[in-house]
């Protein structure tokens, strides 16, 4: 007895048991209610847009891995997240071929060229969306009202448009609360805002479901709570100050919180671990930076929405933050800068 060869491993011999694919999977779970709501609010159109985006991302990731002779990485679930996030930030009647292209770009240019998962400096979904915004500025700002009677039976012609065909402008296009405020100075009721009874990108409208997903991930310790909390707090505080200063020109802080892509961005995009700083203080700086930028772009910039650019800039700043903000190492006098 007791003669066989032994298994050898180096310490530590145990692991907490939370794996990277588990984290990714849970992010997907947290996003599912948001995606379901988008279908509920915008019908088949949203269903098609979100699914196309996911398929495009997974497909691209798989092919790129194959072509570069690597093991396919789709089993880590991160491509699904990118697909969901991209789909959820697009307008509900966004042409599917553009959606597909966006998914390909997100994975190829937002992730693969950097070296894949873990090396992507920017949130891939936002890279995809930024490319689409630059390429198709009209389509990506063509909004659509939510809760239309026929949303479960009719597919918008715009969604099924042929690639590079003359853009079809769908008869009904609803202004988002942000564009309404920015260009027409019409404020939307904030209860409608919070409940998601508004127009906007497929998955950005229902703030409370997004927040719920965030709470779930924070509870599972799979999301750094500091990121959404600092972004939302700094948006609230800064816009609150402006609102107190002059409530005619500036929107109310509640409106700022619940409109546009802020909630989705703060909870699901800015929290992409790869693109955010690694130390608690660094994360707080990153969050405040993004929050301030959102307010600045929304109020003084030429665009109604600034969340995407704010987060991309935050991602760009992350390596700098990480190399400057370093905690004091135990037993040393002060932080090494």
């Amino acid at each position: 007895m007791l003669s066989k060869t032994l298994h050898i491993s180096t310490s530590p011999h145990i692991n907490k048991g939370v794996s990277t694919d588990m984290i990714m999977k849970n992010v997907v779970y947290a996003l599912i209610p948001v995606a379901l709501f988008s279908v509920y609010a915008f019908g088949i159109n949203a269903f098609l847009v979100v699914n196309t985006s996911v398929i495009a991302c997974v497909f691209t990731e798989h092919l790129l891995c194959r072509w570069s002779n690597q093991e396919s990485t789709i089993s880590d679930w991160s491509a699904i997240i990118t697909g969901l996030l991209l789909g959820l930030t697009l307008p509900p009647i966004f042409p599917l071929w553009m959606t597909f292209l966006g998914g390909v770009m997100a994975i190829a240019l937002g992730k693969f060229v950097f070296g894949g998962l873990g090396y992507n400096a920017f949130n891939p979904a936002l890279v995809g969306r930024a490319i689409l915004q630059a390429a198709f500025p009209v389509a990506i700002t063509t909004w659509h009202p939510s809760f239309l009677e026929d949303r479960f039976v009719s597919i918008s012609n715009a969604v099924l448009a042929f690639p590079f065909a003359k853009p079809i402008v769908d008869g009904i296009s609803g202004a988002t609360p942000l564009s309404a405020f920015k260009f027409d100075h019409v404020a939307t009721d904030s209860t409608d805002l919070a409940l998601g009874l508004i127009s906007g990108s497929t998955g950005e409208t229902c703030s409370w479901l997004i927040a719920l997903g965030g709470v779930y991930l924070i509870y599972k310790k799979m999301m750094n709570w500091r990121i959404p909390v600092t972004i939302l707090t700094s948006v609230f505080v800064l816009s609150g100050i402006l609102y107190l200063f002059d409530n005619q020109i500036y929107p109310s802080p509640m409106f700022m919180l619940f409109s546009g892509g802020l909630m989705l961005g703060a909870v699901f995009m800015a929290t992409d671990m790869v693109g955010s700083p690694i130390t608690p203080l660094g994360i707080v700086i990153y969050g405040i930076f993004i929050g301030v930028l959102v307010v600045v772009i929304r109020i003084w910039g030429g665009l109604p929405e600034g969340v995407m650019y704010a987060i991309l800039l935050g991602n760009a700043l992350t390596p700098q933050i990480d190399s400057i903000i370093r905690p004091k190492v135990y037993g040393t006098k002060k932080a090494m800068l």
Partner: protein
Amino acid sequence: MLTSLKNSFKHGVHPPENKEETNGLPIRQFPFAPLIILPMQQHIGNPSQIIVKEGQEVSRGQLLAKANGYMSVPMHSPVSGNIRKIADVLLISGQTSPGIYLEPFPYSGQEVVVGKPISLDASPEEILKGIQDAGIVGLGGAAFPTHVKLKIPEGKTCDHLIINGIECEPYLTTDHRVMLEQADDIFTGIRYLLRVTDAKEVIIGIEANKQDAADHLTSKVPTDLPVKVQVVPVKYPQGAEKMLITALLGKEVPSGGLPIEVNAVVVNVATTAEIGRLLPHGQGIQERVITITGPGVKKKGNYLIPIGTPLRYVLEQVGAVDNISEVYMGGPMMGVSASSLDISIVKGTSGIVVFGDNEVRKVGKIYPCIKCSACVDACPIFLNPSKLGILAKFEAYDTMADEYNLMDCFECGSCSYVCPSNIPLVQYFRLSKALVRKKKSAKQQKSNA
């Protein structure tokens, strides 16, 4: 007694404790193996020098090998018996060391030889010498010669003598049992340590999962001793000297420095008990308490096992499963896997954790670092293991050492434990540290030449 649950260090991890199965089991004497194999390299420093010959009869407790210089300790016979052979023996590291094969006399009384007692009035130097002569090394696992550690450098003073009863490694319950069963030895040991260090106060640090041990020791504190028992919250790696000092004194040991820089000396509680038990009789270490546990053994428990008992014999006695697949010597966080069952119990063995085929952890898939910051939030030294891991991959060892404090890493394993991407961070750091040290010593040699 002082129970303060907020006193701890920052960061750290909470691995499952897995101590319930053995912490209630009293220490039991282990039988003598038919052949004892004693390596001469059981401690940090020079191997002991053998002074006996093949064929010689020795008594239990007799000196078999003497210390080879200051940075070394002697070795005593764990049994009365016959020296069968003097030859190289296998160590857990895979290297070999000179060793003694000893065949115990059957049915002998196994009385221990009594040497020259060291009294409590002896001078500090005599006590230090006595500790070295007893072959005592850190029993917490480090096996660093205790007399070297206790030597207070010129110009320094020791205010706080800290007795380490933390035992933060999962599975292990030896210190727990020692505290419950050997209180008198511990306090006698503390008396010797006080003579040597001249400390003003003694703090016995114990984690909250051993409240019974804390209560027991508190009730036994002799009135003339400045001892307080302090309970701290359970957290790994609180048993590490630096972390324990921070938890108890709120001070940080300077980077690269020893505890004495903050006027403290830390001694493991089992080592303290050993000093208290051996010195009054002038004896040397012959056995130690070891927790044997894990899903792969039937008779789990805390055993008093003669040094030099072959691991194979130990496992046979405790009813190890036939399909043994992994054995760690020490706990799961910092212990070392045995590559062979033909190694011996040594002074630094605090635990043996055994797994069968079915229970071995499958090594998770390795993913790239996703910068989740779990490791940064776990590292008790406040390093950035994520960055260090990436630098190690690029073999940027100098950058790791010069800019990211690599050399402050004490390989506790907290970062690897939490990493969701299963990156072998500690392995990287061990290797990188060794390479940096090598480079440094090569440089030094060059400049000396």
